[in-house]
């Protein structure tokens, strides 16, 4: 992992306490000119919560020895392995539902129990 900083113009630049430890960003730039002084800055970022990363992030791996789940190889969460099983199950169901929706766009999925469940998970971050 490489150190980065937030761009001084970012709305989050003055934030000291983040409710969640994860930010997503759109643009990353090297600022500060040549030499060794160049710093990598995140131009725009949004704080995201664990279940968003678990559901919409990269590959999930489980480390049984210390009860952690890893997203995309480096985003680690302390959680029981059952959480990974649950999230993998939901991901598979989402893919199936989206395949149905793509095959026939007139199918309404807005009130599908799975969609309601995912929204609830995201809203409560698992503390349903």
């Amino acid at each position, binding site marked *: *992992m*490489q*150190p*980065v*900083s*937030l761009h001084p113009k970012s709305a989050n630049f*003055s*934030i*000291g*306490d*983040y409710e*969640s*430890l*994860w*930010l*997503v*960003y*759109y643009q*990353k730039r090297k600022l500060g000119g040549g030499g060794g002084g160049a710093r*990598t800055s*995140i131009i725009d*970022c*949004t*704080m*995201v*919560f*664990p*279940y*968003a*990363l678990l*559901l*919409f*992030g*990269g590959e999930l791996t489980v480390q049984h020895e210390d009860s*952690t789940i890893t997203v*995309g*190889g*480096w*985003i*680690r*969460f*302390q*959680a029981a392995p059952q*959480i990974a099983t649950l999230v993998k199950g939901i991901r598979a169901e989402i893919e199936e539902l989206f395949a149905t*929706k793509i095959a026939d*766009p*007139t*199918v*309404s999925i*807005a*009130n599908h129990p799975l*969609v309601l469940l995912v*929204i*609830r998970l*995201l*809203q*409560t*971050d*698992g*503390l349903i």
Partner: protein
Amino acid sequence: MAEIGFDEDDEHTVPPADEHQHAANDVHFAAELAELFRDSGTTLSPEITSSVPNVAAVRRMKVLYAAICAGMYPNVVQVEHPERKYHQVLGSGTVPLPTDPRSLRFWDGTNFSGSFASRTSHSTRSSQATSHSLTHS
């Protein structure tokens, strides 16, 4: 908004416009999303930044954050606080001091190759910082 599962106590319910009533569902869905994004720029933000945040508004924003997360992934940065918050909270019930934004460190794992060798240099620190419990809000 009830269409996409938001709280029933949502006072910003959008009456379906005539042109949407016989339109395809995906168009309807897109219109609802557009309304949600409009809300997030106007109605929602002041509620969230006010001292008494509207619970329903915060919940709706979390769905929006998740959509942003899905779009931006894998551009993820980890926030490292200088000292874990609960050190202050668990002490004697004292109010935790606000963290100085300049004391935060941000780590970009985007270039992480999958080899654990590249992060051994600060593995001790990151193992503490990354262990963010799912059962702890």
